[in-house]
């Protein structure tokens, strides 16, 4: 079974600082990778996804993530955060096997607070 690890549980940054959130997964087969964001009081929203091709993917709101297959990593980055980026960020993996469809396994989440 696959698992997903997010090493930073809480991150506090000032506005305009750069962000990198780590995500590692364990699964030897083909995967699709996702980052979701959950703003306070709201539902999980898709930030970006990787299926194949260019390992550097760009998402909404200036976020990007890089898939490094050799490191089983899919780190999320943003060069300059804003106060409105305060949210919880979840890395998720869809391991392509079985009958689970697009079942996701989530990491534990990283709570980001951006100070104005």
């Amino acid at each position, binding site marked *: 079974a696959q698992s997903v690890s997010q090493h930073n549980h809480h991150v506090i940054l000032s506005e305009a600082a750069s962000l990198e959130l780590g995500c590692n997964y364990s699964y030897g087969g083909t995967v*699709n990778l*996702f980052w*979701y964001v959950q703003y306070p009081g*709201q*539902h*999980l*929203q*898709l930030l970006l*996804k990787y*299926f194949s091709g260019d390992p550097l993917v760009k998402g909404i709101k200036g976020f990007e993530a890089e898939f490094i297959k050799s490191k089983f990593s899919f780190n999320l980055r943003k060069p300059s955060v804003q106060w409105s980026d305060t949210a919880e960020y*979840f890395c998720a993996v*869809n391991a*392509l096997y*079985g*009958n*689970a*469809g*697009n*079942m*996701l*396994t*989530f*990491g*534990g*989440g990283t709570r980001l607070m951006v100070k104005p």
Partner: protein
Amino acid sequence: EPEVTQTPSHQVTQMGQEVILRCVPISNHLYFYWYRQILGQKVEFLVSFYNNEISEKSEIFDDQFSVERPDGSNFTLKIRSTKLEDSAMYFCASSGAVLGSPLHFGNGTRLTVT
């Protein structure tokens, strides 16, 4: 943009009672899911549902849980006899059938068992 809707937003129930959480997935989606998030913990997969049957379930999804698609639009999660540890946020999600289609989540139902 189409949304997944969940009702109620908050449910309080007594231990041992049955609860039904309701979801209306996006209309042209074919896979449906329930996840839960206990306060302070990670989002955990419960069950996926396709073609009117369970396609995958986790070990959390024991005999006290069941899912149903009673009509063409609703997707429900029933907990037969709630326990204190069932208190959590329950998220419904749906996706298209193409592998890798992203999941679209509802706003969640916060279940509090007292």
